[in-house]
């Protein structure tokens, strides 16, 4: 099909201004599903890793957490979880917080929180892996 779509009721100017449906309305829904599917094996793996580390000395914990396979699984768990958390908390905020100021402040706080927690965990794992 050529540039101008058939049955296009919006004018070119309307389209350029980016008004109307963004065509991404189901993005969060779908990404929440993708991260929940990924979360199942990752959560089981996390529980196995934590149980395997219970009661071990700090040196042993550092060695195991820093080993490539464990570190990669932990990183996947963290990154997957913070994105899943970000969508979930955003949904909760949009459901219950209706006043503009507190809504936008809590949406921002949500983003700051998940990035800070995600980065802290990821940095710790990388530091354990590279041993610096």
């Amino acid at each position, binding site marked *: 099909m050529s540039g101008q779509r058939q049955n296009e009721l919006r004018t070119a100017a309307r389209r350029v201004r980016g008004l109307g449906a963004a065509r991404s309305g189901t993005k969060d829904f779908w990404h929440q*599903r993708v991260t929940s*599917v990924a979360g199942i094996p990752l*959560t089981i793996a996390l529980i196995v890793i934590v*149980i*395997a580390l219970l*009661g071990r000395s*700090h040196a042993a914990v550092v060695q195991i957490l820093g080993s490539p396979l464990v570190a990669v699984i932990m990183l996947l768990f963290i990154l997957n979880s913070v994105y899943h958390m970000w969508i979930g908390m955003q949904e909760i905020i949009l459901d219950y917080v209706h006043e503009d100021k507190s809504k936008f402040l809590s949406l921002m706080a949500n983003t700051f929180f998940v990035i800070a*927690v995600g980065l802290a965990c990821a940095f*710790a794992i990388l530091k354990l892996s590279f041993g610096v």
Partner: protein
Amino acid sequence: MAELKAGSAPGPQRSRPLSPHLQIYRPMLTMTMSIVHRVTGAALYFGILLLAWWLVAAASGPNAYANVEWFMGTLIGRVVLFGYTWALLHHMLGGIRHLIWDTLHGMEPSERELLTLATLVGSVSLTLVVWVVGYLAMGGPR
């Protein structure tokens, strides 16, 4: 029609008929577990700070790690960790239930009640299994 008449005062203040809200429904297991899914999700949102503390402490050194071990060994630490384990497993099983429902399976009244009950029974039993295995791995409670 009586409701319409009663709410016929002009202006934005007039009372309009409202659709029934949550409180008129009999509490049901599926409804309760839907709320619990959201509550456990919110709890895990903040609970991940425990994981972050543990990882950062391990990366920081033996002293910081000893603090985490001390806290997890206290009664409060154990209760928080037990709650975190249950919330994690319950949210995971609840998520699996929602994924099944996303495929339009298990939507019949008896099926959805059974699935919902299964997530609750499953999460409690799995939590106990994880803790028994955990204690065995440590060589008994300390």
